[in-house]
């Protein structure tokens, strides 16, 4: 899973896709995940980060993570070959 390189993410959770001109909003945990994805981190690293910081079990988070990355694909925010 790789985010498009030209995606802009603000600290407050505002996402802008210059290719489509569309913008999106994120909740706080989604900001952290998108930043980690931009740093090139994979699902295991992101899961470890979230499980250490938040009160959630691995199965629940992984379920939610794949749902979230599915939405990133739905919104065309990921590289096509992912």
């Amino acid at each position, binding site marked *: 899973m790789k985010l498009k390189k030209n995606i802009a993410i603000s600290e407050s959770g505002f996402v802008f896709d210059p290719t489509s001109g569309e913008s999106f909003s*994120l*909740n706080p945990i989604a900001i952290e995940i998108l930043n980690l994805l931009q740093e090139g981190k994979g699902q295991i690293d992101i899961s470890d980060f979230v499980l250490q910081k*938040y009160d*959630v079990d691995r199965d*629940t988070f992984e379920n*939610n993570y794949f749902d979230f990355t599915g939405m990133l694909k739905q*919104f065309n925010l990921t590289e096509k070959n992912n």
Partner: protein
Amino acid sequence: MEKAKYERPLINRINAGLPDKFGMSRTMEAITHIDTIPVKDLIDEYGSPVFVLSEKTIKDKLSQAKKAFTTRYPKVQFAWSYKTNYLNAVCQIYHREGSWAEVVSGFEYDKAIENGVAGNHIIFNGPDKSKDDLRKAIKNASLIHIDHFDELYTIMELAETMEETPKLAIRINMDTGIYPQWDRFGFNYENGDAWNALTRIMLNGKLELVGLHTHIGTYIMTPGAYGIATSKLAQLAVRIDQKFNHKIKYIDMGGGFASENTLKGAYLPGTDTCPSFDDYAEAITNALINSEINPEDLPVLFLETGRALIDDAGSLLGTVLANKRLADGRRSTIIDIGVNILFTSFWYEHHIVPAQNTTQHTEDTTIYGPLCMNIDVIRAAIQFPLMNKGEHIVISRIGAYNMTQWMQFITLRPNIVLIDSEKNVHVIRKNETRESMTDLENVPEYLNPSK
């Protein structure tokens, strides 16, 4: 170190200035308690889903309605509409608060008798009254509201053989300027059928005409329509007095007052558009007081309001079973409440909120029930907070009709509890078990699996 509260990651597309069918994003207030009892405790104790009724809200609403009418008119009598919610505990609350019973079948009639209502305090409406039902009602001096000529002739036949004089009213349908005009019940005012029926009753020496009844529709948002209906009944009362020197004892305006639920397709929420009891009372009592009826002979005003009295008192508590994505990326949330127990979801956009506090983040969501059936949709489009499997939700204003129109389909019907005025919780209808259904079945001997 204590970990932070988890909320699942969320991304929403921003459509500035373009509200869609999901509506504008807004904060949703959780309902964590009902009458001071935590929702979580109610579900832990009585299961999920569970219907909850509040005695306090029932009494408060009835008190508001009574105040609206009795401060404007000297003679008012409420009759509890059994079909709206005929759980015995609910009926008893209304009867103890002074309401008579309004029933529409032999089953409901017997229920009212079992609930201790005096026969002459039962109003018997509806198109389906058997000969035995009518005989019983005549014997008990109940108020029989005739729906059609066949019923009138059956009563005439019974009156020939019985000692008691039937106490009768007729139901009258009419044009009150609203659509749809309900014309399937009773006798029509404009085409003369109503006058014809009244004349036949008056000319028959063995019947007593005591009242006039109408019920102009359901969820009526226009109080003025009640004013028109009241004027027409008052004109009939005056005409009867003039022709037969006979005074009508009561005028029954039926029910149909709206509750604050939002109808599907409505532009504004019901909380903003629903008329108050005062609005309805003003229209009805003004029409009566300003009619040609002699002030000394003003009839008693009967009201059979159901929905507007009990909808707010009912809540349905449930649990999130799962979240999933639909093909177009929309979120769907599956809850354990289906259309089989929430019948009113076919016509209301029900008010659904979480039972625990959530963040301000919401998502375009479709809320489905648990039934393996495509039409099991509780809310087709709602901006809903991010909820996880196992978390609880509360659906408000479901006190009317759901506990009578519900059906056993795929799942069994759950517990119904009442929170009394002292905040004690009572089960007033036990949850069904498999045996509740199979005990009524019979497998012919040759199909018996043990053979």
